[in-house]
């Protein structure tokens, strides 16, 4: 058996030698942004790239997802490397699609380069021969929980059940043969080259319709019931409750109005709002969600209208596996120097959410950050400016982590798996998420 360090060196050399190819993948995806469950071009493109590497794979999982395997010499656990296919929508981003406003303002394009980079490393001569087990290469749709109305439509028409990629992959059993998983996300260069650890907010997703009654807004406003006023009362009410939210619960209440009336001269009869209730724990999310629902009802009650409140199962808080973090950190340190690798305390919560949190309830995962961008995450100026750190270095760090996990007859992976106490089984997860879907019509008339 080769020495682990030799295997890593071979893998890194292979990745370095194809760095232009990997960066080109990321930049091509950047130029073709597609929001979640719409990643048709992106999925086909990644599929072609997997083919170029000779990796057979399934496609069309949860509409656009991909999954292939690299088999090691002997049997053992399966480690997944995940890249996210979807973009956000940010109007005015330098790389936004003018028709759809889709834009990679969260750096997912780099993840696909990384995932392929890991494959390139593992395919280096002798590497797979020195490992036990299997590596699943996965491209997943829809990590950004946006387009709620559209996705709820997909849900209603049976094309998806859950409204995010990893949730659907779990439900469809696509993680049933995966024992541990990892992915790396871009972050700002100013935060250092690598950061790992900490948690994320879980959330529920709100799809709200205030229903009123149209009337001539000038001629007979007394005959109307103004759904926009209901929404405004509701959102003011929501803001006044922020003081009741504990700092340590990192609650985030936010949303967008996707329909606010159709003609100025007609009293708005239907106003649509897509919202998010995020928090550090399920209890905190439930509490804040109840507060949101109360405020939504208060808006409808005020004007004597109705509100339809659809609560969709969102994400769960992220738990990073400590064994995997240790291995990742030491490999990342070898690549960029330990002074550039930050270990976050477990309780650190960045406020955002990821469906990697869902997976972390079931199997051991890590979700490190690679600092390679400038601007504001999800903003118009979020741009990756260091593609070596955005694509090549995290690919090398993850590849080396896998090598370390699966070498020596997958000793470290097996121990991490054996030590892991899942919060949920796949069945338990699916049952809980199903139970979180709630549809209510409150009648304020």
């Amino acid at each position, binding site marked *: 058996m080769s020495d682990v360090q030799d295997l890593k060196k071979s893998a890194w050399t292979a990745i370095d030698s194809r760095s232009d190819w990997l960066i080109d993948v990321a930049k091509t995806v950047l130029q073709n942004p597609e929001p979640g469950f719409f990643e048709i071009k992106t999925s086909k493109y990644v599929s072609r790239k997997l083919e170029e590497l000779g990796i057979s794979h399934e496609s069309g999982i949860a509409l656009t997802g991909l999954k292939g395997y690299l088999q090691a010499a002997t049997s053992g656990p399966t480690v997944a490397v995940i890249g996210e296919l979807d973009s956000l929508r940010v109007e005015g981003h330098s790389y936004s699609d003018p028709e759809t406003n889709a834009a990679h303002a969260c750096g997912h394009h780099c993840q696909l380069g990384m995932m392929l980079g890991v494959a390139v490393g593992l395919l280096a001569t002798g590497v797979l021969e020195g490992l036990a087990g299997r590596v699943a290469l996965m491209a997943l749709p829809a990590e950004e929980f946006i387009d709620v109305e559209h996705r709820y439509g997909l849900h209603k028409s049976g094309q998806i059940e859950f409204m995010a990629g990893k949730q659907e992959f779990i439900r469809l059993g696509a993680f049933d043969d995966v024992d541990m998983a990892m992915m790396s996300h871009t972050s700002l260069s100013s935060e250092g080259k690598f950061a790992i650890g900490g948690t994320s907010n879980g959330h529920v997703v709100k799809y709200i319709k205030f229903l009123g009654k149209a009337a001539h*807004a000038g001629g007979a*406003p*007394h005959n*109307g019931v*103004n759904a926009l*006023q*209901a929404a*405004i*009362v*509701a959102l*003011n*009410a*929501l803001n*006044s*409750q922020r*003081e*009741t*939210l*504990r700092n340590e619960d990192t609650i985030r209440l936010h949303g967008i109005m996707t329909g606010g009336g159709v003609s100025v001269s007609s009293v708005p009869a239907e106003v649509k709002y897509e919202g998010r209730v995020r928090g550090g724990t399920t209890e905190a999310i439930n509490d804040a969600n*109840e*507060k949101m629902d*109360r*405020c939504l*009802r*208060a*808006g409808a*009650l*005020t*004007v*004597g209208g109705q509100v339809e409140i659809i609560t969709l199962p969102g994400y769960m808080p992220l738990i990073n596996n400590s064994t995997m973090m240790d291995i990742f950190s030491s490999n990342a340190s070898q690549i960029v120097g330990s002074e550039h690798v930050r270990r976050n305390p477990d309780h650190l919560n960045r406020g955002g959410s990821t469906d990697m949190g869902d997976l972390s309830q079931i199997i051991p995962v890590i979700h490190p950050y690679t600092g390679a961008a400038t601007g504001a995450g999800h903003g118009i100026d979020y741009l990756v400016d260091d593609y070596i750190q955005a694509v090549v270095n995290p690919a090398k760090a993850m590849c080396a982590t896998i090598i370390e996990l699966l070498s020596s007859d997958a000793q470290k992976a097996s121990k991490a798996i054996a030590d892991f106490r899942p919060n949920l089984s796949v069945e338990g997860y699916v049952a809980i998420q199903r139970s979180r879907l709630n549809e209510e019509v409150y009648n*304020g008339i």
Partner: protein
Amino acid sequence: MNVNDIKNLVCAEIDSKADRLIAVAKEILQNPEPGFQEFKTAKTVAREFSSIGIPFEQGIGITGVKGTIMGSDSNGPNVAVMGELDSLKVLGHPHEDSSTSAAHACGHHCQIAMMLGVAMALQAPGVLETLSGRISLMAVPAEEYIDVEYRDNLRREGKIEFLGGKPEFVRHGHLDDVDLAMMTHTSASPESGKISYGGTNNGLVAKSIKFTGKASHAGGAPHMGVNALNAAMIAMSAIHAQRETYRDQDTIRIHPIITRGGVAVSSVPADVRMETYVRGASIEAFLSASEKVDRALRAGALAVGGSVTITTLPGYLPISSSESMLELYVKNAASLVGKESLNKLSHRTGSTDMGDISQLMPVIHPYVEAASGQGHGIDYLVRDYELGVLTGSKAMAMTVVDLMSDGGRKGKSISDGYKPPLTKGEYLALLRGMMREDTYTE
């Protein structure tokens, strides 16, 4: 003597008592008392009645005083001439009582003097002999619908049932045998003339509101509290959000105040009180708006997860003046100030409990434009006491003469020809039906 001779007599009598009447007005101005607390003012009225030998009852609706003057026979109508005893409360008014903030920022002090002027005038030698029926001189408490919490406590203690003086006079039966009523209010639109008349007023319901939350440390544990002040803020926003649904012709007015907003900055407010009126041009309009206000109040409590107790109290009914009485009054007023100085009013969005009386009998409620400044403001001051007391008094006394002379023919005819919108029984039932107290925990 013909009617004009009698009118000349009563006017001359008022002129001869000018100093005394104006002195009474100014005495009351200097001793302002809010509604149902007009003890000093009632004593002034009693003193004046005694001094001119008019028998009276007192303590009606706590502080009300009623004097009676009989005509030569009882064939004519019973005409009520009213004056309002109470002041407002206006912080910073030049004549404010510094301990209570009471201030005559609505000119009621002149009304008492006007009413006494009518009493003195009718007692001039030779006048009463020519009149049939009687005159009820009413000094009525609490026209300004304020201090809702205080008065609601009086109600709960059984001292009053309704929160305004005239509804209490009606309830106690003091309007039962009255056929026609009048009073004159001061106003501050001298640019529109000297005397204004006619028109209509909004009616109202009043609300006393209590938001109940849960106290907790506002810095240390706001998540353990339920903020009643935020409930009130949300409710006020919600009230405002519905303003577009009110029709112009309904002239809805909703104008809350917060009378308690928390007791310590560092404690999440758990008990917040509001008072508001809901006014409108018709009973249907203000009752419909009242339902919308209730929804908004409930929404505030619902949003924070607290509760709200809404006490809705009957307020005043919209007023409409008797055209036949006005016809007489306008002629008399024109003879005093000239036709060009008369101004016919349209709809006014304030309210008066004279509106309640107008639902039961023919009334008039003209204005003498004797003041300047903003009604109910710190600068509302009566500038012209001759107009504010003497002319106002003369115009009413002359109209009383019209109604009661010639055997009270005109007064009886107006009274008989009038179809009151409500009977006393219906009136009391309507008011009692408006009274509600509900606690919502949603």
